[in-house]
């Protein structure tokens, strides 16, 4: 222990006196190398009684730290750079190939859509993909044997149920189980009997949104959708609300936004119209509120539904809907 104390003071003093980098390197080797003095002190440790072992061990560690620090400081003052510059490693070689994964582009799009509505104050509610006629049609004011059902050609299942044709059944479920004020967005997969082509798929993703409270009207719908379009596609992009028909909204409309490809001048994408249709919307039909047990004279609401693939196609310029379901590696790896 004494011997070590002496060596410690001595070697720390020696650092101060050195003026030549080579000498410094020699000292470093003498002390720190594998067969150096510090190592030889270490070999003594196992033979010592536990208490001495502990105190010498601690002293050795603190010396090593102090010595290295001073040595580096000296080296820096002599060379102007660290003495430990690695010289034998080609740092331009690639690192270990940890790969980062990717979310699917549809889920990237969902994140954006849902993020916007969450920020406005909507809650996310999900529902099942296998539904009954009540939630998918009747509760949404689609009478049986009505031509309005033609636009939502369904897959029927052998268990007597059907695959939902839109995410609106969640509207029925939420309205039947909660009281206004309600503000909900509902994402999910939907199914319609459309053969697969560049703009149709028999499975697709939709985001439904609805708000029910006192005094809700077309202005609230427009305000909400305008926020969405602004956040999703860019501030200042114009929208227009074109009258349309859906059984579960009245008035019903389709929402167009100014074509983002030609800034409304007219191009191939918007078929020269300057507008691109992005969703259906409207004021919730009083029968929908009434059949869920709400007083439509007190409450009103708006609802909208958009195809997530369509939004993704516009936002990320994907020309063909089938690409989303092909799962080609080149596609899967592209989007972060």
């Amino acid at each position, binding site marked *: 222990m004494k011997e070590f104390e002496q060596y410690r003071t001595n070697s720390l003093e020696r650092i101060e006196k050195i003026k030549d980098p080579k000498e410094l390197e020699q000292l470093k080797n003498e002390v720190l190398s594998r067969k150096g003095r510090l190592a030889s002190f270490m070999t003594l440790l196992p033979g010592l009684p536990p208490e001495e072992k502990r105190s010498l061990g601690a002293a050795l560690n603190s010396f090593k730290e102090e010595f290295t620090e001073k040595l580096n400081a000296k080296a820096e003052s002599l060379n102007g750079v660290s003495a430990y510059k690695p010289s034998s490693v080609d740092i331009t*070689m*690639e*690192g270990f*190939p*940890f*790969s*980062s*994964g990717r*979310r*699917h582009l549809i889920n990237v799009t969902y994140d954006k859509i849902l993020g916007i509505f969450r920020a*406005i104050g*909507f*809650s996310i*509610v999900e529902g*099942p993909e*296998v539904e009954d006629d009540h939630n998918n049609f009747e509760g949404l004011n689609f009478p*049986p*044997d*009505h*031509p*309005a059902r*033609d636009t939502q050609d369904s*897959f*029927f*299942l*052998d*268990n007597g*149920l059907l695959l939902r044709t839109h995410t609106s059944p969640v509207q029925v479920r939420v309205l039947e189980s909660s009281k206004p004020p309600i*503000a909900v967005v509902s994402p999910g*997969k939907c199914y319609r*009997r459309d*053969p697969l082509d560049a703009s149709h798929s*028999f499975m697709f993703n939709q985001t439904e949104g609805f*708000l029910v*409270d006192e*005094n809700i009207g*077309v*202005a*609230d719908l*427009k*305000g909400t959708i305008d*926020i969405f379009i602004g956040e999703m596609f860019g501030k200042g992009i114009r929208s227009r*609300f074109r*009258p*349309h*028909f859906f059984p579960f909204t*009245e*008035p*019903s*409309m389709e929402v167009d936004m100014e074509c983002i490809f030609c800034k409304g001048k007219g191009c191939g994408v918007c078929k020269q119209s300057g507008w691109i249709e992005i969703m259906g919307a409207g004021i919730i*039909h009083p029968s929908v509120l009434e059949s869920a047990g709400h007083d439509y*004279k007190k409450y009103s609401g708006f609802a909208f539904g958009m195809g997530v693939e369509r939004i993704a196609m516009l936002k990320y310029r994907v020309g063909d809907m089938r690409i989303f*379901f*092909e*799962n*080609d*590696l*080149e596609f*899967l*790896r592209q989007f972060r």
Partner: protein
Amino acid sequence: MKYSMNWLKRYIEFDTPHTELFERLSMTGSEVEGFKEKFEDMENVVIGKILKIEAVPDSDKIRYCSVTDGKEEYNVVCGAPNIKEGDVVPFALTGARLPGGMKIKKTKIRGLESQGMMCSKKELGMGADHTGIFILDEKYALGSDFKGYFNDIVFEIEVTPNRPDLLSHYGLAREVGALVRKKPNPVPRDEEIRGKYESPVKVEVRAPEACTRYALLYVKNVQNSPSPPEIREALESMGMTSKDLLVDISNFNLFEGGHPTHFFDADRIAGKIIIRFAAENEKCVTIDKEERTLTVSDLVIADEEKVLAIAGVIGCLGSEVTENTVNIAIESAVFTPSFIRRTKQRLGIDSDAAYRFERGVDPEAPLASLGRIVYLLKQYTKFESLGNIVDTLRSAYSHPGIIVKNETLERILSVKLEPERICEILSYLSFKCEKLINGDFRIGVPSFRAADMKHEYDVIEEVGRIYGYAQVEPKRPYIRSPAGLNPYFSFKEKVRNHFVSRGYLETLNISICDEDAFKAYGYTGDFTKVVNPLNQNLAVLAPSLFPRLIGVLVKNMKYNPSSLKLFEIGNVFGGKSETEVVSLVLYGNYFDENWASRKKTLECDLFTLKGEIAAFFDLTGNTAEFGECSEPFYTAGSACSVLLNGEKIGHFGIIEKSRIGSKRVPRSVAAAEFSLKPLFKCEDDVYTGYSVFQKASRDITMVFPAGVVSGDIMKTLKASAGRDLKSAVLFDIFEIPKGGTALTFRMTFQSSKKTLSDSDIDSAVGAVIKKLKERFNAELR
């Protein structure tokens, strides 16, 4: 529906250019999906007159004509038989373009120069008639553009299901009237039809719930003939071919007023007309020569012997009007939409009649249609006399009216409108609008809107769509309900992000798929099946996800990846159940190849996978147990089932190669699938504190006899090491040549109360060794 601009303009005059009209229609709910000018491709066809016709030697067909456009004379070779000197004809000048792309050039035929061409209707794109040149009326000015007199714009509107009243030219004229603020001209019709005698054909309605009104008009000794040009052209603009006057009048009335009628040959009706439901398996042959088998919910028009027509859908052979028809019976009825729709759908027949009846026709239409048809018959042909109209209507049309509260209107449309403006909009749409003293409105609904107008909101929409939503100022919504965070949804996002940051690519597969793809993995029975699949290869809902992920892998083998990690979160189906799962597929090495990975290749074997799964469970805060797994798609002995609180929630393992069904996958494929819901914990973690005292580690190496498994050893070790054991890992393993296996365990001890002394640790380790010796007959090495 398709509309002809010329036809529309028979009922309403307006100067609005067509593009502007289409824009306004689209912006008020009748989206114009496209339009085509009839003579879009035509250029330089003018009105010409034949001055002289000379014979050509050696030809009995071709003649040499001199044609003038009023300024110059042209020599034209022509082979048409129907021309004579003085005829006015469409004349294509040299350099003219005809529909279909044909260009007119100067040519020589039999040595004779031909400077232009006289055109047949077919050459002008005006139908199939190619028997001769289209001879025109003399009123047209020579040299003027042919298009100017004959052009038309045919446009298509997506008529929404709530607006059957728009499915006719007159219906659209009413709508256009509301936009240009004009009332359409009334259609000329015989308002009062007075028959001379009782109708010889009687009517009995046995299904009044499906046929709310049936009117029949007997016309005696009617002369059928070809249709006049105005009827023919109108029908041709709808893409129909003219047949004969009687059939054409029925169709003309349909596209004019929107009401389907049916003409029967009255002499082929046996006894009276009966409107009834079909008998089960009753058969009939429809006019498209298909035999149809009917059922008890199909409404038919029958006589006392046979089915005459499937009501509102299609007529049958045996009673149709032919060239020999003398007396006719004209059906003009109202059928209940749902019956017509069911029959139409079941039989797969799309007819113009069914399209309108299933949407609902004007209850007042039957007599109006008959009045119009009589007017047209009088105008275009001769008949001897009419019978009295049979009409089964029991009560005249009445609508109670709709009260529209001004408060509701303002709230829903978010605008304040002058009452006069509201009434103006509604009255141009043919509604009656009465202002009440309290500021509300009583709205009278015309018969042709009765099907759609049931509720105050229906009227509000009419006001809104004409007023225009563009004029409503957007308002940022104030949401009073707090945004619920949906912790399960956030949990799924966490899971998704976990796998993404571990290098997994997320896939998206369609849930409707081929049963065989799952049978290959040993799935049998209990598929949720699609009753009406698009095709037989897409007939079940996926019972699990990983076979689809392996499908994705196989498809991507074209890129020959050395490693691939895929995952997907989605629902799987069986019977009535729907379960959300996360599924993983790992292929080849865990890391992509490069110089560094070559030194430490990590194959995706069972233990890579097990480690991956353990990390995932750690993330979710669950302690899962791994048990034996006998799923047929895994290699025997290389798979585990995953249990949570004793309940099986999933499985993982190395896929049995033969299941993959592709030889292009050289390396091993690992897969895993778990239910997500059971892994979701609602409660937040609570801070438990941590020890500030020193940790100490000890290794022990013991030799165990064959057959002892490390999982059992670990359990015993943990149970016997005392409460200060912080962690234990299997650190090393090697086979002893003489027999048995040496296992090294590293145990880390830490107390929450004190720094453990050597003797504390020694005694804990001693207890472990003692227990392992006892329990497994192990020896310290």
